[in-house]
């Protein structure tokens, strides 16, 4: 089987020779479900476990969907950058561009009954779980049609009907919560798993080890996924962790190190660990990935890493470019068709942004809504308790 690191030159010269065949192939490619087996860019590394094979079964339809979905996520994050700079997004805004392959590859391996929980860098995970661009942008701008009705903001996107449990602002907190989700899944005999995502910064949090220990004792179907983008805010991993081999940090819990910029590798790993976790209990995935933006929009991201490093990753490991090369080398679509997809996605994002801008702010009455599920009519107050008070329903 041809290696995934394909030669673009070969495909483009072939495409000149066989224009008819090419257009026939690509128009059907997005519906094409024949199995293609493609190798991951690098092999997996296992800790206390034999890693899965590098040969990933996929289909042209899936690969094209990876391209489209990652392109959409990339565009969304870039649009969010502009909106933040024009002050339409306030507070904190943590962007995921660079890390799209993790969200997209994971989704391809699991169902909507499997749960995902992550940190504040949650926009793309929300999208991969079925959230819409409009809900995302409206939430970022604090409008009533946002996924959290404008009350959560960037760090607090949720989609419970797709088993996406947020969106968490306190570093590391989502991991014990994820183990709790897995506890409930096992308790309810749901045959589903939870993926609890965290970064290399959070990997040193004590609560992870506490929750992991309990998960191992109870054989919970939880997968701890360290999205190692190598910097915890401004601190490089080697300055924060005595051992930055995050996939080994589970000690007695097995782990797998994955090239997180390779959507197919991510898919293979997630498929593998889901099976493992259902049968045996917790396992750790370390995704070797990278964020192009700084930690948040208030961090330029260039005081603690070089511009060469950032552009180097973009040139050599960018997840979207890799999928583009795979598509072209397997002649699943032409260069111009891929550009068309990118144009479509760009337009989608622009339309969602302009629609979101027209959404209204939340109604004042929702200030007191959802404090409790059941408030027993208890009195609640605004900042001047004699000017504004209400009964909690």
């Amino acid at each position, binding site marked *: 089987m041809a290696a995934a690191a394909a030669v673009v030159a070969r495909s483009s010269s072939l495409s000149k020779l066989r224009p008819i065949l090419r257009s026939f192939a690509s128009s059907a490619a997005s519906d094409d479900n024949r199995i293609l087996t493609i190798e991951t860019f690098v092999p997996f590394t296992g800790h206390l476990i034999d890693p899965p094979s590098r040969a990933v079964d996929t289909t042209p339809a899936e690969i094209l969907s990876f391209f489209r979905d990652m392109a959409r996520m990339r565009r969304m994050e870039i649009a969010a950058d502009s909106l933040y700079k024009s002050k339409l997004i306030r507070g904190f805004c943590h962007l995921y561009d660079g890390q799209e392959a993790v969200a997209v590859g994971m989704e391809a391996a699991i169902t909507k009954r499997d749960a995902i929980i992550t940190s504040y860098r949650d926009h793309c995970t929300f999208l991969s779980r079925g959230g819409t661009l409009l809900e995302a942008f409206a939430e970022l701008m604090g409008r009533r049609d946002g996924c959290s009705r404008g009350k959560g903001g960037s760090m607090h996107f949720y989609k419970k009907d797709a088993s996406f449990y947020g969106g968490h602002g*306190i570093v590391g907190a989502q991991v014990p919560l994820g183990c709790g989700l897995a506890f409930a899944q096992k308790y309810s005999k749901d045959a589903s798993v939870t993926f609890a995502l965290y970064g290399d910064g959070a990997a040193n949090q004590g609560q992870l080890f506490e929750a992991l220990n309990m998960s191992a004792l109870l054989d919970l179907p939880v997968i701890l996924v360290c999205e190692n983008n190598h910097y915890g805010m401004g601190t490089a991993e080697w300055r924060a962790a005595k051992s930055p081999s995050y996939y080994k940090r589970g000690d007695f819990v097995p782990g797998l190190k994955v090239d997180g910029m390779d959507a197919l590798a991510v898919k293979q790993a997630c498929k593998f660990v889901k099976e493992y976790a259902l049968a045996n209990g917790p396992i750790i995935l370390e995704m070797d990935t990278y964020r192009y933006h700084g930690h948040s929009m208030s961090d330029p991201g260039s005081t603690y890493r070089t511009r060469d490093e950032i552009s180097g990753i973009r040139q050599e490991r960018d997840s979207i470019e890799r999928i583009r090369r795979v598509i072209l080398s397997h002649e699943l679509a032409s260069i111009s068709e891929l550009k068309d997809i990118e144009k479509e996605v760009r337009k989608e994002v622009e339309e969602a942004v302009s629609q979101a801008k027209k959404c209204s702010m939340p109604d004042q009455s929702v200030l007191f809504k959802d404090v409790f599920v059941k408030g027993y009519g208890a009195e609640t107050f*605004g900042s001047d308790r004699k000017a504004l008070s*209400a009964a909690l329903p």
Partner: protein
Amino acid sequence: MLGIARRKVGLGVFSATILEQALQRALTAGSVLPKKYSTTAKEQMTVREALNTALDEEMSADPKVFLMGEEVGEYQGAYKISKGLLEKYGPDRVLDTPITEAGFAGIGVGAAYYGLRPVVEFMTFNFSMQAIDHLINSAAKSNYMSAGQISVPIVFRGPNGAAAGVGAQHSQCFAAWYAHVPGLKVLTPYSAEDARGLLKAAIRDPDPVVFLENELLYGESFPVSAEVFDSSFCLPIGKAKIEREGKHVTITAYSKMVGYALQAAEILSKEGISAEVINLRSIRPLDRDAINASVRKTNRLVTVEEGFPQHGVGAEICMSVIEESFEYLDAPVERIAGADVPMPYAANLERMAVPQVDDIVRAAKRACYRSVPMAAAA
């Protein structure tokens, strides 16, 4: 005064303290004031500069003082409060920690047990909840439990309360929480003078101090008198400051709300109401004497705070006044606080969740006219 003379000589020396550099900037900024400063001379200082210079001077004066926290070193501080300190004092005294509050707060308290004087920074006090066991059980109570053997000369500092649009998990005010605990001192600076004097006092204090700053105040510039620049400048812990004298109503506030209270006082003065604004500066110990003396003069009280209302700072102040000055009250005590909801993100909802100047004005008027309030149902 002498301190300033000494420093003027030192300005030619190569390694000027950060304060000396700030003073140099202030001097060359074209001040029309005579070089020989009187205490009425007014220079400007931001809260950030105040905190930075206070840290620098205290670290310079006492080698046992060290700083620990996330991004305090190489990043120059998440909010640039510790800018230049790593370069000056080295990695043994300015430590970048991993994102592990429980761990590094505990380590800080342990170092304090041994006799060092740590300054532990929380990037915001919301994250202190990960470490709160160490603040309360390991720091606050140790001197008592050990009958004075184990004192804990530690300072926990960082931004507290709401910023702008940072949502529910990043906006809580912890003044009432920490002030609840005997064994902790809780300080809430407002101005640059407060920040400098209180941080110096906190670092020199032998007990655990929770030092609650405010992110939105860091960039604000305040006029400061010459003595504030002196390296021995210090403010007493447990003493409030009358920011504005008045006759008709007392308004207590701390941190950012002091600015709002002063704005409210200005508006009220145009309507013939003279408000006395008390900058609490210290939540524990609380300056009950100052508050009660003021209420005995004005007979009316409005308490202002950013935090949640129930069991808040205002509740304690009200009780203190009822206990000590009940007969002096001519109106019920009014309370302005944050709304009783997790902080919403949307700008319009956030505005409703944080006290505004209007709220303070309205409450002061109620206290003065004893008008029947219109309680609006939401």
